[in-house]
C-alpha cells in the first residue's frame, strides 16, 4: 500500500476499509499468524487438494502419453476453439463491459438499478438454460437468427455461437471488477483535465484509462478463465462437430464416456497448465501496469500533463 487511494480490482468497501485501517494501524481480523494459518488450510482444502489429486492421477500416465493425448489432431483443434473463443469473448466484454460499467457509475438514468441487477443475471442463470435460450434465439428460425441468416451470418451451431455464449456468460466479470474502480475516480479529475485544456480523448487516454487499466485486465482474466472451463451453455449452441466446433471440455466428457478417466485427467491438466500460463502473463502485465501508474504522479498531475501544462 503506497498510500495512494487507488486500489485495483477491489470492491469499493474493501478499498475504503483498507484505507481507514492503514490510517489507524488497527486490524479488525485477528493476528497475522492465525489469519495466515487459516488462509493456508482453507486454500489447501479447497484448491490445492483437488488440484493435487488431479495432477497425481494424471501422473499415472507418462509425460509422453499426456503429450500424445494433448497433441492429437482433435485435441489441438479443441484447444484452438476453446482458447480462441474464450479470448474473443473476454476481449469483447473488455470493450463493451467497460462501456456498461462507465454508464452505470457515471450517469443517473431511470431504471438504473434494474439495469445494474441485469448485469448479474448470467451469474445466476443455469448455464444450460443460457445455452438453450441462445441456440433458440440464433437458430435459422429464431428471433435473431431469421435476420442474420439471410445475411450469411450463421451463429447457432458454429464457432461464432460459442463466442456468443461465452460473451454472455462472462459479462458480469468485467463490469463488476470495473465498477468500484470507476467510482473511485472522482469527476473532479476529469474536470481538472478539461480545465487545463485536455481534450476528451486526451483525458480518457492519459487520465482515466491508466487508472482503470489494471482492473480491466483483472476483469478480462476472470472472464477468460471462466470461459475456458465453460461447458453447460456451449454444448447446446456449438454444434459439436469434430475439428470445427468441439471444445476441450466436450472431449473430456467424451473420454469419461469411454471410462477413460486417465485420458480425461490428462486433458484437464494440460488445459489447466495452459490457462495458468495465460493468467500468469495477464497478472504480470497487470502488475507492470499498476506499478508504472503507482510510481508515477497522482491523477491531478497526470491531468495537467495530459493538457500539456507542466506542474
Amino acid at each position, binding site marked *: 500500500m503506497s498510500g495512494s487511494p487507488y486500489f485495483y480490482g477491489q470492491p469499493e468497501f474493501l478499498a475504503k476499509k483498507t484505507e481507514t485501517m492503514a490510517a489507524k494501524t488497527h486490524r479488525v481480523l485477528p493476528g497475522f499468524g492465525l489469519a495466515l494459518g487459516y488462509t493456508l488450510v482453507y486454500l489447501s482444502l479447497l484448491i490445492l487438494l483437488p488440484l493435487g489429486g488431479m495432477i497425481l492421477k494424471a501422473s499415472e500416465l507418462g509425460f509422453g502419453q499426456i503429450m500424445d493425448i494433448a497433441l492429437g489432431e482433435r485435441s489441438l483443434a479443441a484447444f484452438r476453439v476453446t482458447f480462441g473463443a474464450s479470448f474473443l469473448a473476454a476481449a469483447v466484454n473488455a470493450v463493451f463491459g467497460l462501456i456498461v460499467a462507465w454508464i452505470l457509475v457515471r450517469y443517473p438514468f431511470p431504471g438504473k438499478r434494474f439495469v445494474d441487477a441485469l448485469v448479474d443475471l448470467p451469474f445466476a442463470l443455469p448455464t444450460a438454460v443460457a445455452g*438453450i435460450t441462445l441456440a*433458440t434465439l440464433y*437458430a435459422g428460425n429464431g428471433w435473431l437468427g431469421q435476420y442474420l441468416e439471410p445475411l450469411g451470418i450463421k451463429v*447457432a451451431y458454429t464457432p461464432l455461437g460459442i463466442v456468443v455464449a461465452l460473451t454472455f456468460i462472462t459479462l458480469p466479470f468485467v463490469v463488476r471488477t470495473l465498477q468500484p474502480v470507476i467510482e473511485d475516480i472522482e469527476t473532479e479529475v476529469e474536470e481538472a483535465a478539461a480545465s487545463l485544456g485536455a481534450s476528451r480523448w486526451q483525458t480518457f487516454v492519459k487520465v482515466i484509462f491508466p487508472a482503470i487499466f489494471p482492473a480491466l485486465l483483472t476483469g478480462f482474466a476472470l472472464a477468460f478463465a471462466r470461459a475456458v472451463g465453460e461447458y453447460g451453455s456451449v454444448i447446446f449452441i456449438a*454444434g459439436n462437430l*469434430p*475439428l470445427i466446433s468441439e471444445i476441450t471440455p*466436450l472431449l473430456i466428457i467424451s473420454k469419461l*464416456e469411454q*471410462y477413460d478417466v486417465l485420458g480425461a485427467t490428462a486433458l484437464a491438466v494440460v488445459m489447466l497448465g495452459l490457462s495458468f500460463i495465460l493468467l500468469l502473463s495477464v497478472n504480470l502485465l497487470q502488475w507492470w501496469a499498476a506499478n508504472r501508474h503507482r510510481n508515477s504522479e497522482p491523477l491531478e498531475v497526470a491531468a495537467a500533463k495530459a493538457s500539456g501544462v507542466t506542474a
Partner: protein
Amino acid sequence: MSHFRKSIASVLLSLVASAALADASLLNTSYDVARDVYKDYNPMFQKYWKAKSGESIELKQSHGGSTKQVRAVADGLEADVVTMNQANDIEFLAEKGLVAKDWAKKFPNNASPYTSAMVFIVRKGNPKAIKDWADIAAPGVQMIIPHPKNTGNGRNTYLSAWAWALKQPGGNDAKAQEFLGKLLKNAPLFAAGGRDATTTFMQRKMGDVLITFESEAEMIAKEFGKGDFEVIYPSLTMQTEFPVAVVEKVVDKKGTRKQAQAYLEYLWSKEGQENAAQNYLRPRDAELLKKYAANFPPVKTFTVDEVFGSASKAFAAHFKDGGSFDQIYVAK
C-alpha cells in the same frame, strides 16, 4: 435461522419416518428418460409386493445420463438395481465386480424387459422422400442426431447405419465406414443429447430427418402434435435393449437381494409389460405386442450382439478414441 433449522429438522424427521414405515428400501439407478416408465411402475410393484410378502417397500429413483449413473454406482452410490439403456454400461459394472459376470442370463431376453428401435422422423409429407439409410446420405439432405461418441442415442444411430451398409450387396467394413463418412457429412451439428436433438429438429426446424428411438416419436407427438411429422421405418435398424441388473455387492450388504430380484422380475409380468407398452416401448410379451400393434408396426431389426459381437466390442471398434468414428474425421 431458527426457521431454517426447523425446516431441516422436519426434513430429517420425515426421512426417518418414511424409512421407519417401510420394511425395506430399494434404490433404482436409471437412465434419463426412464422417468415416465418407472413413475408408473413403482406404485404397481409396491402394491404387488405388499400383497405377496406383506412388506411395504420404499422405492427411490435416480435418473441421469446412463454412463454417468453407472460411474456413480461404481464410485459407491448404493443402488440395489440398475436399469440402463446400454449393455456396455452394465458390462462396466460387471468388470468392477459389482454386478454378476453373467448378468445378461439372470433374466429372460438378454435381461432387457422391453425394447425400442431407431426410426426416422421426417417433416410432414416427407418432402425429401427419405425411405432408407441411403436417402439420408444423399447430397442436400440434413440429418439431426446427438453426438455419436458421447450419447447412447447417437451411437445407436451410427451402428444402425453401419449394420445396414454391411448388409448391402458386397458390403464390408471398409464400405460401411465409407458410407458412414457420407452420412455424417450431412450432419450440420451433433446435438448435446437426445432431447436436444428433438428440440433442434422440431422447434428450431433444422434438418430434414431426425433419428431417434421409436418411443421418442410418441413423446414428440405429445409435445408438438401429430400433424408436423411422419415416422419412417428403414429397411433395417437396431433393436435397442434396456438391460437391467441386480447390484450384487449392494444387495448383499443391505440384505435386499430378495426384494431387488422381485422388483426386476416383476418387469416381465403382464402388468410390467403393459406399462412398458403404454410408454411406447416394445414389450417382450407377444400377446401385448399384438394388443398394441397399432403403435408398433413390424420392422426388421438386428441386435448389437448379432452384428457386432457385443455392446462392448461395438463400442471399442467404433467409439473409443481412434475408433471408426474418429477415423472418419481424422485421417490417420
